[in-house]
């Protein structure tokens, strides 16, 4: 009877952006279909037409109120190519890197402490009244404070490099518009030891959680997949710049050291009737099997090593769990993310001690181009910006592929897997069971705001339908 299906779905409070999960049940409560729909809005690509190219790195930040810095830098990298700046000055490149690591640090801190830690610390089935950031603040006050302070540290770095915490202007075509003053540098140096320490602590929580619960989470929303990221020439993880590398689930290289300007030769996007969001895949393999994951898990999997000592040691431990093969466990994203937070802290420390940041040679230019691609490893994964510019300096074409779009297929797989495993055939669906759907999505840290190109935050809605297509229940949190 329908009463039994009238389940309460708790507010979905901890995914940023706008999306919808629909789960269809048959007469026996078996899941017949489970999908994540994200309404991708590409109005932005039209809006930007006719705008002068030098405005773009600032303008694109309108795309997303959650990860503006990644868009700022990806667009700036494309505009470097437009103005023919093929090699930036050391000051410009390092200031941009500092901005980027600051953004990575604050984004990962926000995600881990604010959105994920309640699930890890209290368990998926814990009372939702406790399983939230307030609950964490009460039970683990030190952690809550760390999360806030780490986020603030990252934001201050963004401000010092970009000029503002949001809608900064720091990265300009061919370079940067300011260096780091001694006073700014010293204010960060004063705190960096603490940030490193807290990063180690967060890494330990994520690692211990994964190792201790390995049995339970190994299959949770998991599946074999390809992985894609930028990679440095020597195979090191590089979050700011590199060439493209894709590997399969066993670590075999599909392509390597591909100049990202040629990305359209390697990657294409598929449209599916039921989703507004496209599905990118690797051309040589095809849509069926060519999809891939991006983000922290993919990056730790694809790289040969990490060039900072503590993160490298952590990477080795991480890879040992899967005997050196790529880790395909969805919940391992959290561990990988915290390896990156430590890596970012180490990189920030390195940069703060680098005199180049006080250099005054900020901008270079070269031979003007009319088309350019800029890629960056954003906190959530590889971000593609592609532009065409006419001789009057106006944008005539823009194509953006955001991390969340790359992870569209993987997130759908994760949702389907969890729905099948935990919801299918269960007579009474508890909040904890539905939370699992969200836990699986959250592992990817999707930025639905980015994907939908809508400013600010919008809700994720989970809806359960019975076999006649009637909505049994749905819950949305604005």
């Amino acid at each position: 009877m329908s009463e039994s299906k009238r389940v309460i779905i708790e507010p979905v409070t901890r995914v940023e952006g706008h999306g919808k999960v629909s789960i269809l049940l048959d007469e026996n409560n078996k899941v017949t279909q489970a999908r994540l729909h994200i309404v991708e809005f590409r109005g932005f690509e039209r809006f930007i037409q006719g705008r002068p190219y030098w405005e773009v790195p600032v303008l694109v930040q309108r795309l997303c109120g959650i990860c503006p810095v990644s868009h700022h830098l990806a667009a700036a990298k494309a505009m470097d190519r437009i103005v023919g700046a093929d090699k930036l000055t050391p000051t410009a490149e390092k200031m941009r890197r500092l901005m980027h690591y600051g953004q990575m640090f604050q984004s990962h801190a926000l995600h881990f402490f604010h959105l994920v830690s309640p699930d890890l610390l209290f368990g998926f089935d814990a009372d939702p009244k406790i399983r939230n950031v307030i609950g964490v603040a009460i039970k683990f006050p030190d952690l809550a404070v760390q999360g806030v302070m780490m986020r603030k540290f990252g934001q201050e770095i963004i401000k010092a490099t970009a000029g503002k915490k949001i809608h900064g202007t720091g990265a300009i075509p061919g370079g940067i518009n300011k260096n780091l003053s001694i006073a700014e540098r010293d204010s960060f140096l004063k705190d960096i030891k603490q940030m490193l320490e807290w990063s180690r602590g967060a890494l330990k929580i994520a690692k211990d959680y994964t190792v201790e619960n390995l049995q339970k989470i190994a299959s949770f929303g998991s599946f074999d997949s390809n992985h894609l990221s930028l990679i440095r020439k020597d195979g090191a993880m590089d979050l700011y710049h590199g060439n493209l590398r894709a590997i399969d689930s066993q670590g075999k290289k599909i392509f390597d050291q591909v100049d990202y300007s040629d990305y359209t030769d390697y990657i294409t996007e598929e449209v599916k009737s039921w989703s507004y969001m496209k599905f990118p895949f690797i051309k040589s393999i095809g849509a069926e099997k060519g999809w891939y994951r991006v983000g922290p898990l993919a990056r730790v999997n694809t790289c040969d090593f990490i060039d900072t000592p503590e993160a490298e040691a952590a990477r080795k431990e991480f890879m040992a769990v899967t005997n050196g093969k790529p880790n395909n466990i969805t919940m391992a994203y959290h561990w990988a993310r915290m390896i990156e937070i430590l890596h970012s802290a180490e990189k920030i420390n390195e940069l703060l001690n680098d005199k180049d940041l006080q250099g005054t040679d900020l901008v270079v230019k070269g031979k003007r181009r009319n088309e350019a691609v800029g890629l960056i490893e954003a906190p959530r994964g590889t971000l593609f910006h592609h532009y065409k510019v006419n001789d009057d300096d106006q944008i005539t074409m823009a194509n953006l592929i955001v991390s969340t779009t790359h992870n569209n297929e993987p997130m759908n797989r994760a949702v389907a897997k969890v729905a099948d495993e935990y919801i299918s055939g269960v007579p009474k669906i508890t909040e904890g069971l539905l939370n699992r759907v969200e836990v699986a999505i959250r592992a990817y840290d999707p930025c639905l705001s980015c994907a939908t190109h809508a400013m600010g935050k919008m809700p994720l809605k989970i809806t359960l339908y019975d076999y006649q297509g009637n909505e049994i229940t749905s819950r949305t949190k604005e």
Partner: protein
Amino acid sequence: MSDQITFTIDGVEVKGKPGQTILEAADAAGIYIPRLCFMKDLIPHGSCRVCTVFINGRPQAACTQPITEGAIVENDTAELKEHRKNIIDMLFVEGNHFCMFCEKSGNCELQAMAYRLGISAPKYPYLFPKRDVDATHPDILIDRNRCILCGRCVEASRDVDKKTIFEFVGRGADKKVAVNANADLKDTDFKATDKAADVCPVGCIIKKRVGFAIPVGQRKYDTKPIGSDIEAGKK
């Protein structure tokens, strides 16, 4: 004949020279009267009405009105502030002003005036007019989305550059600054060194490829409100 004229602004005695406008005399005395279309070196034409003051009880544009002996001028009053806010408000909604990605932000007189007057968001609804961009010139771009029709470019081109490249066409909401009978800027002899390239108070006539080269914090109005340079000269 006396070569000095004495009058008061908000009760403060101000001395000026014959032929000076209220605005000029106020400036010299370190009293700021808000203004937008007025610019030193250009002939004032009183189009924006932001500088409106009460002279002996009658509203007048301070940038065009000559000083007179014994005049009682009111400038810094609640009523006039409200009037000025309304004008600024309307200028915002009549164009397409997205300060967060406008390269003039921080150097913009309209934005600075809004800050000085304490406007955070316009109270009138945005009109989102359709305006175009002229990017044809190699060195200068015109983004009409941000034009406030102050007339400075028209005057500078006509009176200083002797070229008459800009002119107003249309009326009311359709009024816009055009280039030589609607030609593209590239078809004129406009130069980036022209006076008219340097007078726009907003981000409408801009030099290409400069963009955001000046960082946030080092822009003209980032640390000091508009008018503070004049007020610094207060006697």
